[in-house]
């Protein structure tokens, strides 16, 4: 109980602090839309990229939802570095704050942010002619996929933040991990248009689990069994990375 309560209050703290950053809010709204509109235009004439969707934008929307979520998660560790630099974390650690709650609140915050962005992207997508073929369940799957993707990568990101503790190293790691994972996934093109080895590799990419789930929900409106498995894999990934980040507090505490 205490764990959940602490997590809750720490989520409140982060949400409240972020709401005081108008530029952050603006970027959270604008950035995913830029990706959707830019990529949507860039590849719109390449017919084979649609993967059976009525338009490239319909194919792309679940991809951008997931890209946005996992990028957001990957970068969320910056918040931990800022808290470390301001010694807020030390203050929490010298109080009976649960280490897991400190990490998990950031993971939850990243998940909520990604979910709100997914909602925004879907609404704009609707205006561009995208249809969610999975109906209400489809919407829920898209929200779950985005939240879990962001959460899984937020756990990883916070672990890295606690290990490297420097912005520059954090940025390098996020780029090093993030960009390859983006291109070894079906975010921009369907697996059928990928070189065979990349298509095979992408099956082990957590980003792709989210993309497949969201695309099943929007384009196909079916394959619910496979979709469920993808979501469960993401739940497991979130658990693993959150525990990894919690464990990384040891490394941090050895350093102080």
């Amino acid at each position: 109980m205490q764990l959940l309560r602490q997590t809750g209050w720490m989520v409140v703290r982060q949400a409240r602090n972020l709401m005081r950053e108008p530029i952050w809010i603006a970027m959270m709204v604008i950035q995913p839309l830029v990706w959707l509109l830019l990529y949507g235009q860039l590849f719109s004439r390449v017919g084979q990229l649609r993967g059976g969707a009525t338009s490239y934008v319909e194919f792309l929307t679940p991809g951008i939802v997931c890209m946005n979520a996992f990028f957001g998660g990957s970068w969320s560790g910056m918040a931990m570095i800022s808290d470390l630099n301001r010694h807020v974390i030390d203050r929490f650690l010298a109080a009976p704050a649960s280490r897991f709650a400190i990490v998990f609140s950031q993971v939850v915050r990243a998940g909520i942010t990604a979910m709100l962005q997914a909602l925004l992207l879907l609404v704009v997508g609707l205006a561009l002619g995208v249809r969610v073929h999975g109906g209400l369940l489809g919407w829920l799957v898209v929200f779950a996929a985005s939240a879990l993707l962001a959460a899984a990568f937020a756990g990883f990101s916070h672990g890295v933040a606690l290990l490297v503790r420097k912005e520059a190293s954090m940025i390098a790691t996020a780029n090093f991990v993030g960009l390859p994972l983006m291109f070894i996934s079906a975010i921009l093109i369907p697996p059928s248009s990928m070189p065979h080895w990349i298509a095979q590799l992408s099956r082990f990419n957590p980003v792709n689990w989210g993309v497949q789930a969201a695309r099943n929900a929007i384009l196909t409106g079916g394959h619910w069994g496979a979709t469920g498995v993808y979501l469960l894999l993401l739940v497991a990934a979130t658990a693993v990375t959150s525990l990894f980040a919690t464990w990384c507090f040891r490394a941090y505490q050895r350093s102080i």
Partner: protein
Amino acid sequence: MGAVDAIVVEDLHKRYKTVQALDGVSFSVKEGEVFGLLGPNGAGKSTAVRTLATLTRPDSGHALVAGEDVVRHPNRVRRAIGYVAQDSGVDWEATGRENLMLQGRIHGMAGAPLRARVEELLDLVGLRDASDRQARTYSGGMKRRLDIATGLVHRPRVLFLDEPTTGLDPEARAAMWVEVERLAAQESLTILLTTHYLEEADRLAERVAIVSRGKVVVEGTPAELKAGLRGELVTVDLAGANGRAHEAVQVVHRIEGATEVAAEGQQVRARVPNGAQAIPLILSALEEQGITVAAVTTARPSLDDVYLHYTGRDFSTEDQEGNR
């Protein structure tokens, strides 16, 4: 021992890659006492406090805070302590009140008791008017006061103040001293404070341990430590530049009880057991030799002298080394 010990530290060792930060630190603090760890930067004070606040694990040795072992039961220790780190732990984006509310919630407080406590503390540290402003707008002194209030939300039994006045301007420092004195009186707390300001330890701490290179070199009340130097410093200014300082040193040397006699320009300094008794003797002896005196002053030893005496090093030069 009498009173219960709020803090017991026995033979703590802690080594970072190349630095032996703690090299067998031992001391104890009685309940309700204000205890000062005094030493230059890099002496190991902060490492000692971080160990007691459960942030750092010692390599060896034992430490009990409020009766609980910091390594075996860190969470019990955390519930009993307030930790005000050397670097402010204020959340800049949150308001002063929000900072305090969250800290209380981490300690499991809630509802009306928490709100009442937060209001009480805002008054105590004089931040009521600024309580709904983001802490990023606070001055250094205000942030520091918020730090202290944050450390007090859950009514801890032991409060750690790591360098509470470092980085404050003289005015804010004086205000902070008044604050700490009031806390010590009002909240019936045990306070462990670290400082590299001698006058701060002298003013605030009932007992002091001087830390140098990871060890406690001496421990006692400021008065005891000064008395341990046995005596007062007498400074005699010779009249005119007639170059008789060396002669004067010989004369003062013959006075009973005078030690550490030395000349510097037209000044002769000596340590004597009792200034009031020694001064007439010194003056008449000098007069007999026809050496005229312009002025005489006596000074009780300062913690500066204590530091020099026990470590064999001058405090200010040591401090600069520590800063490197």
